[in-house]
């Protein structure tokens, strides 16, 4: 099965890229494997407790993608700086108590891994 990797660098709401990435992934998952790497501000996307009155909950969207089979990973350096810390235990597919289920914090080497296993890469950034 071919693989698509999407690299994101923006947080939710401030830009439309989280939603565009969701739509791309949803479409791709029908036939392909999808990896999503959350880099820089994108590590805010999976934060729990989001309650947007006027937008669609981005964390929920990405948790849904993880449930459907996408590998969603956040950069440890970016996440740690922003207050999302990995734990040893993995609960509901996540190693961060502040994150939605299915989304894990990993080393940046995981990005390199994703790229070397991919057929195409899409990067969305402001």
């Amino acid at each position, binding site marked *: 099965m071919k693989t698509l990797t999407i*690299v994101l*660098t923006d947080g939710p709401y401030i830009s439309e890229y989280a939603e565009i990435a969701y739509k791309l992934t949803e479409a791709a998952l029908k036939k392909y494997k999808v990896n999503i790497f959350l*880099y*820089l501000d994108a590590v805010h996307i999976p934060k729990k407790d989001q309650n947007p009155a006027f937008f669609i909950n981005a964390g929920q969207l990405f948790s849904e993608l993880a449930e459907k089979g996408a590998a969603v990973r956040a950069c440890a*350096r*970016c996440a740690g700086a922003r207050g999302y810390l990995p734990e040893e235990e993995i609960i509901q597919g996540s190693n961060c108590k502040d994150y939605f289920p299915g989304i894990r914090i990993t080393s*940046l*080497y995981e*990005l*390199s891994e994703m*790229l*070397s296993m*991919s057929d*195409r*890469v899409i*990067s969305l*950034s402001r």
Partner: protein
Amino acid sequence: MKSVFYLLDTAPYGSENAFGALNAAAVSLNEMDVTLGLYGDGVYLTIVGQDSRKLGLPNLEDILYAYGELRVLVHEPSLVERGLFGQTLIETIELADEEDFFEAMESSTYVIEF
């Protein structure tokens, strides 16, 4: 071997993008052909003598030296437009005219932007 072209078009220090692009490029050095393409405001990264200690930020020039095997391709028209031609530039960079810069993008497996 796959090749990845990281396109950096934002200035260093004012945003985390340059640091992010350098780190991302560095982790792939063993597995892929990696080029860091400096375009637009990204070309400011090439000026010699950066000292970011007083800002409490990592020195990006030092990081560039630390990854000596990273190919750094600089879009010359961006450099000229920004008045950098009189500046002393980091020696390990490679200047490219627009044609060569675009060809490097076109011949890479992936292009990733920051």
